[in-house]
């Protein structure tokens, strides 16, 4: 007990000290965020000019091309996983209203395919796309070529291999059994090493840069690269935890995958592309500081709101509720920043489909985050907890926001990496509208279904049967929305194959 007590005091002391010294550092360097840093992403002559997905005169060409091989590898891997992951999503969704769909074989059972869907989407699509786009952004913002890019082939291959193995494991019964952490733990070790191999060149690139300004996007990227590996390693030490307490660790991690990994990468891209495409710096550079530190503090402590009503200690529940509501602060500051910037350049939305993806994503970030604050409140949580509402919310955040932003990022980055323009801008537009209609159908339908289900689960004059039957039409609605989303991914993949095909043909001739 004495060692435990000493440990508590030490950790607590350390974290308080760190916070205090951090605040002091901020106060002493009030000039940390000089407004001209907001312009650091423009090269001479770029300010005031809108930049569409085509690249008439790419001033960043040499930086873009410095690590083009590995970046392409990451982005293409992400698209492959996306196709697989969303196909699985649709199958799982159909199984909800037609349980016998595709037959009842061991490896086709709902429980296994759902797990594959989630893990492929999280560790295949979202992580690869986020990593690939960060690898493209870091050299641009730090204005140095990527350090030792070759090692990234190894890292990417290890990561791909790890996700493949993890999926095969799930199909054959090797699972850790914790949601978001299902991959068998030795495979998680492989992923951790692969992640470190990506982080090293990124950190070294940042460290070697002579660039005066450290642009917002870099705050988010750098932090995400510190947060995720640590979280991942701590959360995988399953042997330390049992019972309800393990539940707390489980959801602390699961929510932090969103809050401290995918979200910061997505926000970083918005902070880069929104000003880049419109040609004007972000509305308020100072405000972005609040957005970032608010996220760092609040988002890391919200996870236990997934366990309200379960026998976790009351203070854990209350703390996570307070922090979830507190999230409204960074969300609103980021919202003001993004939406005012977009609103001032609405005209560009008509020309640039990429900007449409980005602005839609930013809007969904605001909506899904405020939703999150709302359903953390006990009164609302009593209805929404345990229902399809949660799944609707998860897709609004991870698809409506992050995936849409990643789509936009990839549409912007690929022509610059390959030095070739999209042949069919109309198809990019089609992708956008299919995806946007799809996710809105998905989220609205399941959101309504979830609330009706939640009310039936609270109704002490009803039966459980009613809570299930009331959701059925909405589950079909989800499959409809999901089909549109999957269709949009096929268009996406076609666009990319076409671009690659033309590049390869040109090289040969």
């Amino acid at each position, binding site marked *: 007990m004495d060692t435990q007590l000493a440990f508590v005091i030490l950790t607590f002391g350390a974290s308080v000290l760190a916070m205090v010294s951090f605040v002091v550092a901020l106060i002493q360097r009030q000039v940390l965020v000089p407004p001209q840093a907001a312009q650091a992403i423009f090269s001479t002559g770029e300010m005031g000019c809108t930049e569409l997905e085509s690249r008439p005169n790419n001033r960043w060409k040499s930086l873009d091309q410095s690590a083009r091989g590995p970046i392409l590898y990451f982005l293409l891997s992400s698209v492959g996983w996306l196709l697989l992951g969303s196909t699985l999503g649709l199958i799982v969704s159909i199984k909800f209203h037609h349980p016998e769909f595709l037959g009842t074989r061991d490896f086709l059972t709902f429980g296994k395919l759902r797990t594959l869907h989630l893990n492929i989407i999280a560790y295949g699509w979202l992580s690869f796309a986020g990593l690939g786009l960060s690898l493209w952004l870091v050299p641009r913002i*730090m204005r140095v070529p990527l350090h030792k890019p070759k090692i990234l082939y190894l890292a990417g291959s290890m990561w791909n291999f790890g996700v493949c193995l993890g999926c095969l494991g799930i199909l054959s019964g090797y699972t850790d059994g914790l949601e978001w952490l299902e991959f068998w733990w030795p495979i998680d070790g492989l992923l951790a090493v692969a992640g470190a191999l990506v982080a090293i060149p990124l950190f070294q690139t940042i460290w070697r840069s002579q660039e005066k300004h450290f642009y917002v996007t870099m705050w988010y990227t750098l932090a995400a690269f510190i947060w995720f590996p640590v979280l991942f390693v701590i959360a995988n030490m399953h042997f330390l935890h049992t019972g309800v307490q393990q539940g707390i660790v489980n959801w602390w991690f699961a929510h932090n995958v969103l809050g401290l990994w995918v979200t910061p990468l997505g926000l970083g891209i918005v902070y880069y592309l929104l000003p880049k495409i419109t040609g004007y710096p972000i509305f308020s550079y100072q405000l972005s500081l609040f957005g970032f530190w608010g996220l760092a503090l609040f988002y890391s402590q919200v996870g236990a709101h997934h366990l309200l009503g379960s026998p976790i200690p009351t203070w854990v529940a209350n703390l996570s509720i307070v922090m979830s509501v507190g999230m409204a602060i960074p969300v609103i500051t980021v919202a003001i920043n993004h939406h005012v910037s977009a609103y001032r350049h609405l005209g560009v939305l008509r020309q640039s489909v990429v900007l449409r993806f980005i602005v839609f994503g930013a809007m969904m970030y605001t909506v899904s985050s405020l939703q999150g604050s709302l359903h953390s409140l006990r009164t609302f949580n009593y209805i929404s907890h345990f229902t399809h509402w949660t799944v609707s919310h998860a897709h609004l955040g991870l698809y409506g926001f992050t995936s849409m932003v990643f789509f936009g990022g990839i549409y912007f980055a690929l022509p610059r990496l390959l030095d070739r323009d999209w042949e069919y801008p109309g198809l990019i537009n089609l992708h956008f509208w299919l995806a946007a209609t799809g996710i809105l159908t998905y989220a609205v339908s399941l959101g309504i279904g979830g609330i009706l289900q939640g009310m039936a689960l609270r109704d002490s004059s009803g039966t459980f049967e009613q809570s299930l039957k009331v959701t059925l039409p909405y589950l079909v609605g989800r499959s409809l929305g999901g089909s549109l989303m999957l269709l949009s991914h096929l268009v996406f993949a076609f666009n990319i194959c076409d671009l690659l095909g033309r590049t390869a043909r040109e090289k040969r001739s």
Partner: protein
Amino acid sequence: MKKAYIFVFGASSTLLLSTFLFVIVPRLGQSEVVQEGRSAQLPYTEVQARGRAVYIEYGCIYCHSQQVRDPVAGADGHFGWGRPSRPSDYIYDRPHLLGTSRTGPDLSNIGLRQPSRDWHHLHLYNPRLLVPWSIMPGFPFLYRVVPGEQAPAEGAIEIPNSKGNWLLPSEKASSLVEYLTCLKRDGETP
């Protein structure tokens, strides 16, 4: 890039704080839970533990919770799911199976509510045999179906309305049902 250190420092400290609050402190509190709940539940037997692994492998957790809420939060008690859960109900649970979805009913006390092993086997084989409106997946691959006038082996279960077909549970199915029928979280904590 020397300015970066502030972000490294700040980002690490917020993460440290949250690790402290959500991993370390609850872990330290766990020893009290274990002492307090010493006799609330029995450890799983070997068969039950294997059944638990089957429950995990086939993802029952994505549709079934194992936590009963207070009456203010929902009609859990009304559905017959049992008394509100306590931390000591879970001291042998690793990995935890609290669950966050109730597409299907809560299973904290399914062993009390449905003690019949035959019911469970038929239900797992094809839920719609017993509950026509069910959307739960069937697990027929855990069973062998044998035709016959009489039970082909001990433990075989007659499939209703199937003209003399019998269900032979595999080892996986039997241990899963052993696990389900042992879930009785109604014990009083002394």
